[in-house]
């Protein structure tokens, strides 16, 4: 069923692209769909462009695992549209032709701006492409049963076909279709979640029996831990930095890892899930991995308003949220730890971590708003980048050139705000739905929403998966159009001044799309396993640092000069990328200790955005223009 819906969708999308192919014979047709898209269609296409894999897969996954902190992304992403509507929509429409670089350079004709803005567009687009491609692999892997790399390759090939056949025309209609379907079926899924209600022993609609994780009483004797119950033997103990302890217990020859926890009743060992690599063989929960022996999906409420063994049945949207928010509700979340045991085997252990409902429904589990000064600064930095980033994303900005006039640009932004805002409210319900219905893959939170859909049957799973796939296609298409415009239009045509007729310009755009699509495929394979929402947050930081200061100052400060704009873009790109490269989260990705990272912040915006503004002001003051005036 899932494969049928998926193939049907892909065939339809490619057929649509081929049908629209004749609209992309000119540069205007290829890059801006002729500038004739209706504002209503453009508005929904905006939503389709913007609601990426990060929004659908990443945010839902993050809410499912850390609660409200994931919803902060929804709030920040939506708030960014206010900057787009009130500050940049109409002026940018008036200034630009095909690309964001055109708008920045409209009053200057500066080679510096062309080069800097084109590079910035490429960098931001590639930063944004990585999580989309990672999301594609994550999605296709369980859907079609093919490896992650093949999933990424397949998505890349389809997207290149969409873009290379009809450029912005096909991209617009794919995004429109995807935006529309995403909102409709996410609403259906949320309705199903609320009607099912809350249950302390969720069984995925009767499909998967609820698994009871056990606890064993234990005793501590110095550094040793022993199990009180008979027939359990402690065979290994590992201490993790930060005070965590895990013991390997043997029962009847089966070895499993247990989490050592202090409770009101004394020391207890809590059952975990584990993946241990012994030589070439992967062991899951004490037995060799197989089709039947995989990690169990997790996520449930241990108590609802202080009571165990409760099934609320049908709820409404308010009582659903209130039930989880109750301070006596206990949510079982899962944390991950990696270590090498005393036998030299690599182990990944997923251990339970119970949190009260009132704690999980406010910020703090991931972003430490009650933590140290640096941790709070990191939160501030993230919220700043999300707010400032939307209006600086090249693939979003080029959509202002697909409508006929500035008023249409404004109206399409409002449609986008309505559609995107509504969807982001739904993300809270979908994420929490996955959290309480036992539909989180502990090894990969990105699949929370599709797995939640699967608990309602194969049809909804097939539709939601196909839409999630369309989500990737729509956003990646937009990114590749933006990036190919930066290469073919900004660099080849404007910067290097290579003589091309209109057909050659379109061909250059299509060749660029092929190359960028190839790079995206490669990066999607390399970055497998990272939370896609986190990666998009970084792309926002780069966009906000590199592009927004230039756009805002161009529009509102008359002393802005071409050199000031070019310098601020370069500083924004270099500083934000540099800070990210040496951040704790990237150190974890490199396999290094995050505590050794020289930059203590994961989100660079709080440093790089002001620095980019300051650079623009200083360089502009040092290089006053003679006669050109800012807009």
């Amino acid at each position, binding site marked *: 069923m899932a494969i049928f819906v998926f193939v049907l969708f892909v065939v339809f999308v490619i057929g649509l692209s081929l049908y629209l192919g004749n609209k992309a014979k000119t540069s205007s047709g290829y890059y801006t769909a002729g500038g004739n898209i209706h504002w209503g269609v453009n508005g929904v296409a905006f939503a389709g462009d913007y609601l990426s894999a990060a929004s659908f897969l990443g945010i839902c996954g993050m809410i499912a695992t850390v609660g409200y902190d994931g919803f902060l992304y929804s709030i920040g992403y939506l708030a960014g549209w206010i900057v787009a509507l009130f500050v940049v929509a109409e002026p940018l429409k*008036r200034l630009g032709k095909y690309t964001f670089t055109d708008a920045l350079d409209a009053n200057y*004709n500066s080679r510096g701006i062309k080069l800097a803005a084109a590079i910035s567009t490429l960098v931001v687009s590639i930063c944004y492409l990585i999580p989309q491609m990672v999301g594609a692999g994550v999605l296709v892997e369980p859907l079609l049963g093919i490896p992650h790399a093949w999933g990424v390759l397949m998505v890349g090939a389809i997207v290149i076909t969409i873009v290379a056949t009809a450029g912005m025309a096909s991209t617009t209609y794919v995004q429109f279709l995807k935006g529309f379907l995403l909102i409709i079926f996410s609403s259906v899924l949320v309705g199903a979640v609320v009607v099912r209600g809350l249950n302390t022993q969720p069984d995925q609609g009767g499909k998967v029996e609820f698994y009871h994780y056990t606890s064993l009483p234990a005793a501590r004797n110095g550094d040793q831990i022993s199990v009180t119950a008979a027939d359990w033997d402690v065979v290994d103990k590992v201490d993790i930095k930060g005070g965590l302890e895990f013991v390997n217990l043997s029962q009847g020859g089966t070895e499993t890892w247990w989490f050592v926890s202090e409770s009101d009743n004394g020391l207890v060992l809590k059952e975990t899930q584990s993946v241990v690599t012994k030589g070439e063989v992967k062991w899951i929960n004490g037995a060799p991995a197989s089709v039947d022996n995989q990690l169990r999906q997790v996520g449930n409420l241990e108590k609802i308003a202080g009571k165990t063994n409760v099934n609320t049945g049908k709820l409404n949207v308010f*009582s659903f949220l209130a039930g989880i928010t109750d301070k006596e509700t206990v949510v079982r979340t899962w944390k991950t730890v990696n270590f090498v045991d005393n036998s030299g085997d690599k182990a990944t252990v997923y251990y339970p971590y119970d949190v009260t409902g009132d704690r999980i*429904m406010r910020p703090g589990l991931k972003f430490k708003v009650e933590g140290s000064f640096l941790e709070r600064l990191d939160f501030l930095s993230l*919220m700043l980048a999300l707010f400032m980033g939307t209006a600086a994303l090249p693939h979003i900005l080029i959509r202002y050139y697909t409508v006929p006039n*500035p008023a249409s640009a404004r109206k399409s932004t*409002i449609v986008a705000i309505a559609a995107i805002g509504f969807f982001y409210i739904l993300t*809270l319900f979908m994420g929490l739905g996955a959290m309480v219905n036992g539909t989180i893959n502990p090894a990969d939170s990105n699949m929370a929403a599709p797995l939640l859909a699967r608990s309602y049957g194969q049809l909804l799973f097939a539709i939601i998966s196909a839409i999630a796939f369309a989500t990737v296609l729509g956003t990646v298409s937009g990114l590749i159009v933006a990036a190919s415009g930066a290469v073919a239009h900004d660099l080849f045509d404007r910067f290097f001044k290579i003589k091309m007729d209109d057909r050659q310009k379109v061909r250059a755009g299509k060749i660029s799309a092929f190359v960028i699509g190839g790079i995206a495929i490669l990066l999607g394979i390399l970055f497998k396993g990272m939370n896609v929402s986190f990666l998009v947050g970084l792309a926002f930081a780069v966009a906000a640092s590199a592009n927004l200061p230039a756009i805002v100052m161009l529009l509102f400060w008359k002393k802005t000069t071409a050199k000031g704009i070019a310098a601020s873009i370069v500083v924004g790109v270099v500083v934000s990328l540099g800070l990210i490269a040496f951040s704790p989260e990237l150190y974890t990705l490199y396999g290094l200790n995050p505590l050794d990272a020289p930059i203590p912040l994961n989100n660079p915006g709080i440093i790089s955005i002001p620095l980019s503004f300051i650079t623009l002001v200083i360089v502009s003051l040092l290089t006053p223009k003679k006669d050109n005036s800012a807009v």
Partner: protein
Amino acid sequence: MLHEPASPAEKDPAGPYKMLLGIRMFIFYALFYAGFVLINLIFPDWMGIIVFMGLNLAVVYGFLLIIVALIEALIYNYMCHKKEVELAHTESDPSKTKKG
């Protein structure tokens, strides 16, 4: 203008009005957003206070940030459109002067 826009930009007499209105509405929303961030940073416990139908301040404020964005956007569009129509009439018939 050194290279032409995608579609020829017509003269927009409402441009300065829309820009000023946009900045004012942006500042209002930015302050509302900043309030959310600052409460989290300075008084994080407040976010757990139940304020409406069992929902805490974090959820209600988060939803409001989304809903207020849409309301502001609709108001902005209404006022921009009204001004565009008003100035278009004034331009087409110069004898009509703006009241108030």
